[in-house]
Every structure is written in C-alpha cells, then in structure tokens.
C-alpha cells in the first residue's frame, strides 16, 4: 500500500481549512485513484495500483508534489498506511519508506496523532513525549484509563490494525470557487488563481476520462466597489477539440484574459466546466510516435485565433465561379470545408491577387506599372455575373464584369495579370488584378 497525505495550511486560529479547499484538492486527487479520503486538514489517497500508469513512483511523486504545491498544499508525506502518512506529514517528514515505519513513528512527538489530543496533558504528566513513549505503556492500562480510540489509533498507525475510510465521491459537475489572497485589479493577474482552479478541473476531467470543450471563469468584484459597477463578470472559453491539457487551457485562458478589462478589483473566482465530452485517449506505445511529438497544428491555430480574432486565421474554399474575385473565399479554420470539392480551373491563374483592382495609367494606350508593361498573351475574356446582386434596395448593383485579361510582363514588377475594361462612351481602362509570383 502506498498512501499519500497532503496537508493544507490551517487557518490563523488553528481552525481547519475551508471545506471547499479540501474538496478541491480531493477532486484533483481523484485523477490518480478512486480511493481518496478527507481527514481533518489532510487529503489522503492510496496510489499503489496507479504507480505504473503514471510512470513509476518517482514520476508520480514529482507530479503530485509539483501540482499539489500549485494547489496550495503545505506538506506531503508517503507511508504504508494513511494514519502514519498523516502523522508524518504533520511532523514534516516526507518519505515514510526511508527507515522502518516503527522507528520513524517512535521518534515523532505524540501530538501528531489526533487521538492523543484529549489525553495530551495526562500523558505528558506520565512523562510521555513521543509516540514511542506512549506505545511502551502497558496496553491493558491504556485501554482501561483512556478511551479505546487512543489504542486503536496507535495500532492503526503502526499497521497492526486495518484502516477504514469514507471515500470521497466524485461530483457529477465541476464547479470550484477560490477566494483570492488579495484583491486583483488587472485581468491577466487573475490567471494565477485561475490556474489553481484549472488544475482541479483537469484532475476532475482526467478522473472522468473526459475533456472539456467549454469552460467558464466567473469573477466577483469585491464589496468595496463603486455603485455603478456590477457584481462581477464571466468569460467562457471554447475549444475546438475536447481537451484536458492544463498548459493548453491555461495559455488559451491567458490569451482571452489579456483582452478583458476589469471594472473593479476582484475578490473571488469561480470555474465551471460547462461542456464536458468523453475523450478518446491515445494509447501509450512502446515506440514513441513521432508525429505526436509537438503540439498539433489545430491547437496552435486556435491560440493564434484567440489573440488575433477568428476572422484572421483563414482557410481558402474554392467556389464555382469564373470571375477572379469570387473564385475563392476564405473562412475561419475551425469551420469544416464543404464536402463537395470544386475542381480547380486548369487555366493559368495568378498566385497573388489584389483585393481591389488597381487602375493603371496608360501611355499610347499601353498600361504602365513601374514602367511600360509588355502584353504577352491574351485576351482572356471573362464576362458574366448579371445574376449576382450586391446590396439591397436602391443601392443594389450587379457584380457584372466584362473584362479582357492579359498576361503582362514588367521588367521590374514581374509577371502581372492585368485586364482591360470598357467604360462608358467607348473609353477603356486598364487594371492590375494579380501577380504571377
């Protein structure tokens, strides 16, 4: 048996830590094992069966210590039973496997066992200071003079009697609150507190074998705010693919928080997992999978879209039109491409286009663009679009085009795609529309 005890800091007057904090840590711990119990100020869990899944004892311990410290855990201890782990954590000894458990426990002050508490003064008058002293007293005498809990607790701590626990049940919905240590005035600074909540959420998601596609961070302004400011605000973050990757969610949240402006200092945070879906995990393989080494492209583009705005991370879609402006359109990346693919035209087409054609000046009826243009091939007539109405009502026009396209060569500007259009009263004008780059 491999028990871990995680101790949360006590309140200022020696009171137990708030229930929410304990529940938060317990929820997070559920990702390691279903056998999690809360006892006074400690969260206890048994991980013997999970050691291999998390990459060995050393890796598991490092992860628990690192993430636990983020959650505000004060001290850790590992031992063969829960009571011993709890006692060692209180005494500040982390490793309960360094020496035989009896030796370790004998040296601890007797106060580390809660069952000693009611009889502390009597025992100290008897000359006991350590657990070893208490254990060496005659058993018959202890059970007669003190209550049965003391002897039972000592037996359980030394592993002579089995433990009994009430396991923590996993909540069906994730909702966690956090009171910030100090008032926060800048939105990005909320991330520190939000990370703690995210850590709990990722633990809860891992325990449920799911990922989230949307989660909400709510904040409450503190009571000293001015009157016109509301109670607080909230921010919902959506992801394209379900995820419980802490770093990814944290960076996504950071991008969104960077844009938020707080109206008043914030005192409390709350996080809710709004949409949770089952996540299919990649199986652990003996041979490392090379393609999965980095972050997937989808995740990066999502983060870029979070900063720049989704309308600026685009993918092209071909449309069935022969006019250059409507040959393709651009849509945000997460949107799926249409199922019916359009065959691309096999005519020569420029590789860059100008969003609005540029009118060129002319000399002797020949277009100029960084010098005289030499028309190479053409004309390529593009005509049509009377069916395509732009705008509504009075100002409606049709996107009708009647153009002769030419491939033009400039000695400085490269190979260009220019067109000649007939204007009113037999005038013509030349436009630059694309570049063959």
């Amino acid at each position: 048996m491999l028990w871990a005890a995680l101790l949360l800091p006590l309140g200022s007057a020696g009171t137990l830590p708030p229930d929410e904090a304990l529940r938060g840590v317990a929820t997070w711990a559920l990702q390691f094992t279903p056998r999690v119990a809360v006892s006074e100020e400690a969260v206890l869990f048994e991980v013997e069966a999970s050691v291999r899944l998390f990459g060995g004892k050393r890796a598991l311990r490092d992860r628990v210590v690192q993430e636990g410290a983020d959650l505000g855990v004060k001290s850790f201890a590992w031992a063969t039973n829960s009571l011993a782990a709890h006692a060692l954590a209180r005494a500040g000894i982390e490793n309960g496997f360094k020496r035989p458990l009896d030796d370790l426990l004998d040296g601890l002050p007797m106060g580390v066992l809660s069952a000693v508490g009611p009889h502390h003064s009597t025992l100290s008058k008897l000359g006991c200071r350590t657990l070893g002293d208490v254990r060496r007293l005659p058993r018959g005498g202890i059970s007669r003079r003190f209550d049965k809990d003391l002897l039972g607790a000592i037996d359980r701590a030394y592993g002579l009697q089995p433990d009994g626990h009430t396991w923590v049940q996993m909540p069906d919905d994730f909702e966690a609150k956090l009171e910030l240590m100090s008032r926060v005035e800048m939105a990005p600074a909320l991330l520190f507190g939000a990370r703690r909540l995210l850590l709990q959420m990722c633990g809860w998601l891992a325990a449920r074998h799911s990922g989230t596609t949307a989660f909400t961070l709510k904040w409450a302004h503190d009571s000293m705010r001015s009157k016109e400011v509301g109670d607080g605000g909230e921010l919902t973050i959506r992801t394209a693919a379900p995820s419980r990757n802490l770093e990814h969610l944290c960076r996504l949240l950071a991008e969104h928080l960077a844009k938020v402006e707080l109206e008043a200092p914030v005192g409390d945070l709350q996080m809710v997992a709004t949409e949770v879906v089952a996540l299919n995990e990649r199986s652990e393989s003996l041979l490392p999978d090379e393609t999965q080494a980095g972050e997937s492209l989808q995740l990066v583009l999502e983060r870029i879209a979070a900063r720049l705005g989704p309308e600026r991370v685009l993918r092209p879609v071909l449309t069935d039109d022969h006019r250059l402006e409507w040959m393709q359109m651009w849509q945000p990346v997460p949107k799926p491409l249409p199922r019916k693919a359009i065959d691309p035209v096999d005519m020569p087409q420029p590789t860059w286009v100008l969003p609005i054609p540029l009118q060129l000046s002319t000399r002797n009826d020949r277009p100029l663009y960084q010098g005289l243009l030499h028309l190479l091939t053409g004309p390529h007539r593009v005509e049509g679009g009377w069916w395509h109405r732009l705008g509504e009502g009075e100002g409606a026009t049709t996107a009708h085009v009647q153009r002769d396209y030419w491939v033009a060569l400039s000695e400085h500007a490269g190979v260009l795609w220019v067109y000649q259009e007939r204007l009113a009263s037999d005038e013509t004008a030349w436009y630059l529309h694309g570049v063959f780059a």
Partner: protein
Amino acid sequence: MSAVLSWAGDEDALPALGLTSTARSRTRRSQPGELPPEVEQALWRGCDFGSQGGTVVSSGFAALDAELPGGGWPCQALSEVLSPQQSVLEWRLIGPALRDVVSRGGNVVVVGPPKTPHLPGLHHTGIDEKHLVWVQAEAPAERLWCTEQLVKSGSCGAIVAWLPQARPEQIRRLQVCAQACDGLTFLFRPAAAQHESSAASLRVVATFGVDWEVRVHVVKRRGPAHDGLIHLRSFPGGLDSVLTPRLLVPSELIAARAPSRQRTHQGPVHALGGPAASSRLGRHATAG
C-alpha cells in the same frame, strides 16, 4: 569542423588498421598531386559543404540543390529569402518544395503575406485548400508572435512568413526555436536586410529575371561563400501551358520592340523614352 576532426581521427586510425604492403605500394604508385583513394575519401576540402545535421527538402531546381548544403532547403533551421520587391517571385522560388511538402500531407501556413494568396493559381504549384492556412498578422509584433508559435509547435509542413521589420535578435530567437521544428521555415525579408547580421542558417537573395527566370545568390550557407547567380527557370501559375516558343524569351521580344518604337515615333516624349529603352537593353546584355 567535425569533418576536420574525423579526418584527424582517420589519420590516427591508419596505423592501427595496419597498412598492408599492397596498400603501401599503391600509395607509392599514385601520381604526385593525386591522392590515394582512402585519403581522398577522408579529406575535407575548403570547397565542400559542412555536415548538414538535419533533413532537407529538395528545392525542385537541380541547379539550386547543388548549391544548398545537403541538397535542398533545410528543415530544423530558418531559410531567409531576401528580395528587393515583395510579391514578385515567392511562390515561383519555393513552390516546388511546397509541392513536395503538401504531397506528404504537410500543411503550409502563410503568415502576413503582402497580397491575398490566390488558390486557383497555387493549385498549379500543388497546394490545395486542405493544406493552406492564411494567418492575417499585420503588426510586426503579431507577425513575430504567430511565427514563433507555429515554429514552436513544429506541426506545420512549411511556415512561410513575411517579416519586413524583424531585428537580428528576433531572428536569432526564431532560429533557436526552429531547431526543434521538423518543417520548413521560410522568412521573406527585404533585400536591405542583407547587410544586417542574421542567425538564419541559410540566406539567399532572389531577384526576378524577364526570361521566366528567378536569379538566386546564396549569401550565407554552411559552407564556402557562393559567387555569381543561379538562374532558375520557372513558369508561375500554369503559364507554361499557354506560352508559345516566341514568348519563352520575352527579352528578345522587348528588344525587338524597343528600336522600332524609337524609329516610328518622333516626338519629345519618345526622345526621352528612347535612351531609357536602350539603357534597359544594355543592362540585359550584361545580365545575360
């Protein structure tokens, strides 16, 4: 450096292997100035390229591949393309390499291009809608940030970024990130950046030639300095299917037109235009 070291190692190894008498006799028989094959093999010459650590993607031009260390555009490193003008030759130069990337299922991500990419034209270089992403980054800081995120993720087949205002320390940062990125990374920068230092492992200056050419000069590479220009013949956007033999050499066409214009039109405007045309002609003669 490593090549020199290995050569020194080989020298030590020769006595250990025990040169047989036949080998000695062969050494004696070789002509002065001609090295025995085992020495020839281990010898590193000043004109050889240094050892290229990572993989490369062929540029699609044999003449260019011959001048690039490893025989292509490097993965896990930055390739800087400097050109005097934007949006004149980008796809022509890197298109064949991108075709290779896309055919292997890699994505091409374009960061902050100077104009709108036109997919029907890019189809001719083998890029399709499933493998092209356009990131519209405008401000210099945005361009850098997006490029860095993409490079760090290492999940793109090719990253093509326009960074007109990047500073040397920012390029260095990208180069460090790129060492862990398996895809190609192209940075397009103005030709003026040629005089700044840069951490990119490959820098080329590309200019446009009238006769369907891209002229490339390698400014920096892992190897000896490069002299002269490489002339690469490329037809953009599927134009090769419509060009007549006469149009394959537009410089002759232009040259043929220029004097005729001078002869037929007499006027103040064309008196000015004449010398300009002839000076252009002269430049072509020297460039050719």
